[in-house]
């Protein structure tokens, strides 16, 4: 499979072969996606919907088909799929578009301590705008959600619960089905951050009963600058258009504007057609492998890495041990070496990992993680055991140097 990804044959200036283990940050693109983008600009490109000529028709059809492909991929209806620029914009769109008109001072908003900043700060800021309660659910020592505490914190005043299906810090798969039940029993809505889960496991919005789901194209083989907001049909009534402008209006008068129907009403301005068709092409590639197989593959690499690293001196591994709670992310620290220095030594060995707070300061603070930072190796479809071996060797190199 590596040969489908041109970048994976990169050799660093120092002669080392690239081993890309930073997939939770962004994934590499197969040739089919890269070529789909080129083909778009070489033979289809026009503005969408409003230009009734040959190219405009090509583009509009491709864009609509991309929406259908995304809808099918997550088991949603077409009208429930809104294209955005990424997970962060999707979540802000819910916070402003649904939160602002529907949340008031007496309400409560609940997030998990393990949320990514993009699924934490927008809710915190919404709570600040509304002067309402903002509850952060504590974690167990292994970084999983403390479900007892979560169930205690939710009340009839809770309006919104935000939760990632998979965390980016430790790669923990949260029990969203169970959370969803509790949320709906209490009359709140569930907003799921799928930035990590959608690329790595099967997604069925009806099964998990999410009211909103967000994810990013670039983390699942697609191009940058495209993301998705899934909004359950029932929510479309109460979801206010957030960005306004061309393409989302029905009629503009001096005093007032009427808006188009969903999904158009939520897509102001020229959409990123390139991004949408690139994402659709990525989905085609993923579907061919099968999302079940992807999860299994990630887990097998995780288990292999975990079993090798757990006995390595000075190495601390974060997160739960149970494989069913995890996907392909190994988060660790080496005693006495700051993760940035770990990353630098690994990089000199050709190995690309991420170091730092991973946009997840609350969990690092809560678990009192050394340096308030970690190293993180994250696997994807094109990684194999030899990549893990290279990682382990490089960790030994880091230990020797520091």
């Amino acid at each position, binding site marked *: 499979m590596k040969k489908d990804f041109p970048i994976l044959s990169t050799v660093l200036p120092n002669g080392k072969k690239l081993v890309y283990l930073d997939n939770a940050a962004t994934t590499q693109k197969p040739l089919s996606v890269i070529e789909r983008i080129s083909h778009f600009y070489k033979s289809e490109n026009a503005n969408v919907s*409003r230009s*009734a000529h040959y190219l405009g*028709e090509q583009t509009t059809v491709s864009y609509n088909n991309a929406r259908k492909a995304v809808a099918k991929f997550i088991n949603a209806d077409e009208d429930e799929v809104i294209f955005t620029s990424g997970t962060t914009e999707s979540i802000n769109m819910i916070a402003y578009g649904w939160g602002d008109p529907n949340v008031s001072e007496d309400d409560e908003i609940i997030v998990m301590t393990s949320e990514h900043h993009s699924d934490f700060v927008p809710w915190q800021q919404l709570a600040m705008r509304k002067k309402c309660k903002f509850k952060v659910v504590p974690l167990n020592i292994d970084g999983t959600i403390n479900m007892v505490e979560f169930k205690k914190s939710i009340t009839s005043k809770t309006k919104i619960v935000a939760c990632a299906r998979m965390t980016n810090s430790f790669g923990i798969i949260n029990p969203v089905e169970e959370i969803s039940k509790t949320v709906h029993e209490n009359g709140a809505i569930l907003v799921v951050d799928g930035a990590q889960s959608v690329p790595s496991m099967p997604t069925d919005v009806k099964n998990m009963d999410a009211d909103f789901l967000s994810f990013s194209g670039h983390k699942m083989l697609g191009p940058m600058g495209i993301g998705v907001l899934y909004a359950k049909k029932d929510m479309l009534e109460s979801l206010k258009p957030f960005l306004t402008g061309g393409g989302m209006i029905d009629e503009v008068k001096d005093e007032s504007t009427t808006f*188009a129907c969903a999904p*158009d009403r939520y897509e102001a301005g020229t959409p990123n057609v390139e991004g949408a068709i690139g994402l659709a092409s990525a989905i085609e590639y993923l579907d061919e492998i099968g999302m079940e197989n992807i999860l299994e593959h990630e887990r097998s690499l995780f288990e292999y890495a975990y079993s090798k690293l757990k006995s390595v001196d000075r190495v601390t591994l974060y997160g739960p041990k149970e494989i069913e709670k995890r996907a392909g992310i190994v988060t660790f620290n080496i005693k006495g070496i700051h993760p940035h220095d770990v990353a630098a030594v690994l990089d000199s060995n050709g190995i690309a990992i991420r170091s730092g707070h991973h946009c997840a300061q609350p969990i690092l603070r809560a678990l009192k993680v050394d340096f308030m930072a970690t190293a993180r190796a994250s696997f994807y479809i094109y990684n194999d055991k030899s990549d893990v071996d290279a990682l382990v060797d490089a960790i030994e190199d880091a230990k020797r140097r520091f």
Partner: protein
Amino acid sequence: MDELSDLYAEVIMDHQRHPRNFGKLENFDREIQMTNSSCGDQISLQIKFENEKIKDLKFTGMGCAISMASASVMTEVMKGLSVKEAKHFCDEFLEMIREGKVPADDLKDAKVFSNIHKYPMRIKCATLAWHALQKAIE
């Protein structure tokens, strides 16, 4: 002629030049306004019912040849139909346009729009009046 006659068939051009039932009813039971937001086409449709039947209907509007001709044809074929028949007729028409399905029943003049499904950018033009009717009788 050339491939454009696919889109602008004789019958369509005739309805466009001489739209039937264009104007306002003195007496009507239901009035629907609808716009096609992406291109700005507008229609206003008035209907007079009698005994669950469409006794009379007229339209005014602004739009391209396809949308005006389609409105004209629609009013012509709908006049006198029962509400149930009209609904069925609408469904058949919309399936023909959107999916290219050959209609089971005789759609009369409305059949001239069967080529539109090959022109995805014009589907909304051809269906605007029919959506307005659907809304009026739903």
